[in-house]
């Protein structure tokens, strides 16, 4: 289990709506938020959640690292030549940092999830969606029922996991 993670915008704007969002810190000592992600947050709910996490030392702002930034831009350009949703800079940056620093990448972004699967350069990166996090919380005994917690999460965030997404946890559901 990674002790640190880096979160992108798609993950944060969902997770901040979840009533038990503090459970994230049962899995990670610190969750980094890249500057490029922080810059695109504007809603009171998300910013309040982020500000509280920063105050408590559970979240930290990740500065732009020149080498990671350069590779992220290359990844963005590469992904735009493919017939699948491209990855944008903030997610690309998370993937590069995740690989280089051994952080789990927290995302719900289809472009980022796809890159992790089809690009061998990122095959080693641990990419987690809220679905995966809830499953791990359940396995560790932090939530009573994976199925019920997932229902709560989907209701509160309007995130919808498809049958294909859920298939890998079929036995637990």
């Amino acid at each position, binding site marked *: 289990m990674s002790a640190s993670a880096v979160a992108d*915008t798609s993950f944060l704007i969902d997770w901040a709506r979840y009533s038990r969002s503090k459970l994230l810190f049962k899995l990670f000592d610190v969750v980094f938020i890249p500057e490029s992600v922080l810059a*695109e947050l504007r*809603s009171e709910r998300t910013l309040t959640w982020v500000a509280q996490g920063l105050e408590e030392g559970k979240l930290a702002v990740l500065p732009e690292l020149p080498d990671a930034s350069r590779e992220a831009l290359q990844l963005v350009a590469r992904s735009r030549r493919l017939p699948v949703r491209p990855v944008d800079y903030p997610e690309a940056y998370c993937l590069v940092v995740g690989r280089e620093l051994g952080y789990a990448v927290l995302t719900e972004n289809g472009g980022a999830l796809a890159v992790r*699967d*089809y690009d061998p350069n990122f095959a080693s990166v641990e990419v987690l969606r809220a679905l995966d996090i809830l499953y791990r919380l359940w396995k560790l005994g932090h939530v009573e029922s994976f199925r019920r917690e997932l229902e709560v999460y989907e209701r509160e965030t309007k*995130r919808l996991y498809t049958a294909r997404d859920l298939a890998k946890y079929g036995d637990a559901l």
Partner: protein
Amino acid sequence: MDERKLREWVERLREAREVRRRFANWEFIKSQPPKLRIALEYFVETGDFRTAAALAGMGADEFVDFARLEAGIPLVY
């Protein structure tokens, strides 16, 4: 490049678009002023909240809240 995985993701994202189209509140979307209507329609078709937010002139999280809570567009990928 894993071509098989790439094709699988093309299919996954196509399925996601179908889900967004099916659950979206089209009456609400069609009633919006052009800037917002076009942004919401773009989001339904692509799932790209960042560009959709820019089209709407909103922050990324503001747009996602608007899309999921007001326009009934589920977040899939």
